């Protein structure tokens, strides 16, 4: 941890970055996002196995962008999000310095997309074993049973949009959910409003979700909503051979038109 704090302190002191986005100790031992802009701030930074949150979402926020160049303490999910955000032209190549704490406690500085790509290639899948098991259990159900499962879960949804707000790939300044001229999706958190919201979100993240599970962790009522977007990502990967968060260049499967597409409906 001291290596990370010293690295952050040096980067700030030398003016190489103006903010180091990382983790600090929160309530009851939780880890929470931290924005170190001074040497004193750097002393608060933490790194351990509990630093599971994906911090990449902050990189596209105006308040953070205004601070100047950022370094980000990156776990596997954050690295994948960095690549996906670069591929989607939300981050300029080399705009962010990724700091990776190795198992030996050293700090790697990944300053460009190629370095991040190579690092990500050495990492196992983001989806935890527990989530993999949940997903497989869901897939083993019949269509009707699966529908019943989601209806039961989604009735808990209060439309607080914590899932959308916590998702690094939900960076749209103006979301279709918020559009009221016309109102595409009902605002109410009733059955139809919830089903439409979560279906639209899963479809929009199909092939783009970096499987960090942030939306599921963020949900205050405990809906495992990340399983929907994770499944949609894997579906696109299977059918189009495009894994999200592994490359900084991408011809996004669902955002691409080719006259020689194999499907006739799109031609």
């Amino acid at each position, binding site marked *: 941890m001291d290596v990370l704090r010293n690295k952050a302190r040096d980067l700030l002191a030398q003016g190489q970055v103006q903010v180091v986005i990382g983790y600090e100790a*929160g*309530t*009851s031992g*939780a880890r*929470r*996002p*931290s*924005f170190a802009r001074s040497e004193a701030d750097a002393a608060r930074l933490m790194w351990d196995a509990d630093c599971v*949150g994906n911090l990449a*979402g*902050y990189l596209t926020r*105006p*308040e*953070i962008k205004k601070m100047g160049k950022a370094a980000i303490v990156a776990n596997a999910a954050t690295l994948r999000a960095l690549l996906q955000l670069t591929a989607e032209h939300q981050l300029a190549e080399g705009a962010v310095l990724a700091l990776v704490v190795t198992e030996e406690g050293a700090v790697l500085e990944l300053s460009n997309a190629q370095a991040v790509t190579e690092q990500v290639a050495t990492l196992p899948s983001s989806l935890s074993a527990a989530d993999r098991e949940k997903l497989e259990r869901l897939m083993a159900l019949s269509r009707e049973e699966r529908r019943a499962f989601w209806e039961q879960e989604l009735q*808990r949804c*209060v*439309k*607080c*949009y*914590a899932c*959308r*707000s*916590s998702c690094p790939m939900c960076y749209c300044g103006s979301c279709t959910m*918020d559009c009221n001229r016309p109102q595409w999706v*009902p*605002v*109410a*958190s*009733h059955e139809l409003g919830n089903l439409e919201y979560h279906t639209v979100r899963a479809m929009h993240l199909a092939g783009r979700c970096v499987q960090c599970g*942030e939306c599921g*962790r*963020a949900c*205050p*009522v*405990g809906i495992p909503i990340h399983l929907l977007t994770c499944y949609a990502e894997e579906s696109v990967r299977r059918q189009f051979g495009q894994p999200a968060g592994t490359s900084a260049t991408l011809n996004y499967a669902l955002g691409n038109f080719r006259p020689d597409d194999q499907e006739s409906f799109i031609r």
Partner: protein
Amino acid sequence: MTSTFKLSASALETLFAALSTGGWRILGPTETDGRVEVREVKNPSQVASQYLQSTLSAKEVAFPKVERLLSYKMTPGQVELQDHDPELQPTVLFGARPCEAAGFGVLDKVFNWDSRDKLFSARLRQLTVIGLSCTQADDACFCTSVGGGPGSTRGSDLLLTPLPKGGYLAEVLTAKGEALQALVPAVFEPAEGVDKEALLAKVEPVFDRAELTAKLPGLFASELWAEQSLRCLGCGACAFVCPTCACFDIQEEADTKQGQRLRLWDSCGLRQFTLHASGHNPRNVQAERWRQRVYHKFSYFPQRFGEAMCVGCGKCTRACPVDMNLKEHLTQASGA
């Protein structure tokens, strides 16, 4: 009008049975897959045994997340308007923590401070609250800093405090509480010499609410709010789990022939909350929205009603995806 009794461990079964027979609906905290939710229960065994708090607050009993206000049908030359009168059943909310029970009084001030809100008042009228004192607390709790406490009677009609060897100390607090007692008078046994305070969780006060309220107008332009809200994601989780957040949105769901008007939970943390039709947003950044949340609860509301719009339950802190700890932030503001 407080009268104090003892209930044995099995008394609740007798009470629940009598309520069911009498046509009451009983709501209580239940636990499934680690999620504590307020749901309809028939007997005490369905109630979660060990829980700090439910995730959502009990406010939805009186202020549901979606409520129809009215509906209409249109035919050529005619509009048929239908007021919404929900079918209400006498309801007992069992096991509300003292903070949550106090929340109803705060909501009542908002919904009924000038005109009376028909639907909210109707739901509240048929509601009897059986509070359950806290014997444990966590780092998010700060009830004692906002005028409450782990054994506070405010908002409860009947307050139960668990006794170490099973059973409860029972305080009958209102006419509604007396009506419950009258259903099963035999289970209310005399209680003497019980030190209630000794049974309760210890929640140390961390700031002086009145001092904070006095201080806030001078802190309006402080950098504190921008600093505190840097990590805030701008979602509505804090407001939606809050027992006192009362802001709502009115939405029309309609086609050319019929429609309905709905009242929905809303939150000042959301960007759209103050977005004008022109595109201008008077609270354009999250720092301003966070400040509004703090000021509404601890400055504007106390100025009007003499108490905070917060019961210190800590639900917002527990629900926040990025640990926006309200107790910590208020303590910081108090010392600023």
